[in-house]
């Protein structure tokens, strides 16, 4: 299999990439890791006329925390960079849990987090993780830079809010107000398969009290699901057996699973509840109570 014919440009600067996209209009696509785009092109589900390969644009492969606590992931930061990052492990527990579960180890060497978000696969893992952290995508185009909250960024299956001349230059996770905790658990039939069920839970705590919480679900609906009621139920009180059980039950209720070859709807809903409980039970201090 091979893609349709296209024009290929590999600009050495972001400004050049944006100019190329402007000229390419609706028929241009940005190529970063290519681990979703190239398969789509080979299957002819996508047939862009212009490919703007940004791999030669310097300074996009970072992930770092600003002095104010904002965490930034550049458009060329690969999944493997995150998987092997001590900094991520020390600062972003939900993301650190998800990084080794994306696709398979070889795909992780090329694929990027920002690219995954742009791809907008309803089964994508990173969308749930970033949604649970209330993150945004920074787009840069002719009109300048703008931040788009992830909830507004993914507009449908394989659709995003980028304008034709915009490049998604980074993903941004806002600073934690309290201490950050959380995790991502994924049930998959084998490495590299889509999630049967994926659950992202991110909480911030001040002392015993949960100050902010986000819960998002992968693979149990037509798109990523924000379990907002479940998350809201955790805020303003300490984690306890009762609060964890309530959040798990509300998250299960938010899921819209369908019975398919990966499992029954009932099973998937049950796994959502189990994963929420499991992640929250591992948050420091809650382990003893919820064990």
């Amino acid at each position, binding site marked *: 299999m091979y893609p349709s*014919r296209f024009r290929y440009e590999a600009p050495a600067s972001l400004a050049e990439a944006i100019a190329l996209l402007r000229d390419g209009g609706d028929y241009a696509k940005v190529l970063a890791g*290519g681990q979703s785009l190239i398969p789509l092109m080979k299957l002819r589900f996508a047939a862009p006329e212009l490919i703007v390969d940004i791999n030669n644009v310097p300074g996009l492969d970072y992930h770092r925390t600003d002095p104010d606590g904002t965490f930034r992931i550049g458009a060329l930061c690969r999944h493997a960079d995150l998987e092997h990052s001590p900094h991520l492990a020390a600062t972003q527990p939900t993301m650190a849990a998800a990084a080794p579960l994306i696709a*398979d180890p*070889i795909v992780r060497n*090329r694929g990027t987090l920002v690219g995954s978000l742009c791809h907008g696969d309803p089964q994508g893992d990173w969308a749930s993780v970033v949604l649970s952290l209330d993150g945004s995508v920074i787009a840069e185009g002719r009109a300048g830079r703008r931040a788009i909250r992830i909830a507004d960024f993914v507009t449908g299956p394989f659709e995003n809010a980028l304008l034709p001349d915009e490049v998604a230059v980074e993903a941004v996770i806002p600073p934690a107000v309290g201490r950050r905790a959380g995790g991502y658990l994924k049930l998959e039939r084998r490495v*590299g398969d889509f999630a049967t069920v994926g659950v992202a839970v991110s909480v911030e705590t001040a002392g015993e009290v949960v100050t902010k919480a986000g819960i998002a679900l992968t693979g149990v609906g037509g798109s990523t699901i924000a379990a907002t009621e479940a998350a809201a139920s955790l805020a303003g009180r300490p984690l306890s057996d009762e609060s964890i059980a309530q959040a798990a039950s509300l998250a299960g209720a938010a899921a819209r699973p369908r019975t398919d070859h990966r499992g029954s709807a009932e099973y998937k809903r049950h796994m959502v509840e189990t994963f929420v409980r499991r992640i929250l039970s591992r948050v420091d201090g809650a382990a003893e109570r919820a064990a």
Partner: protein
Amino acid sequence: MTTLYSEPAPDAAGDVPVRRISFTINGEKKTAEVEPRLLLAHLIRYGLRLTGTHTGCDTTNCGACTVLLDGKAVKSCTMLAVQTDGHDIQTVEGLATASELHPLQEGFREEHGLQCGFCTPGMMMAAKALLDRTPDPTEEDVRWALSGNLCRCTGYQNIVKSVLWAAAKLRSQATE
């Protein structure tokens, strides 16, 4: 110079845009003219006639086409050849010297790490990337590193043993 204007394309017509690229493969500098849509796996197999790199699933699942790009394992069916301009590629043909097998190849022979052999080049290249980074891997490390490579024959047991055998051999060579 290798010239590969296009895939064997039924829709080939009109002006075919061609890019000239330079890269290193198994230590050898090469120049090629490629159509941008040419996949790296196809450049390697049809352009350079290095047929050790196999294309199995052609859908980014099986890992038979795994090669090293600047030392990192990548699926060559899921990269454009044009993207290797200025980069270094290693394929399974680069493992052995004229007189000696690479310890990974020896390991696969000693531990019976293959049956049909189709996945083997990809397994070896993924394993090489692991051992370059982690000379003393655990069994778990090996299984994790090879989890993007499918084998339909062996059940993986002997592949894992083969990689561990190679790791031990490489370590003993390093201390000699």
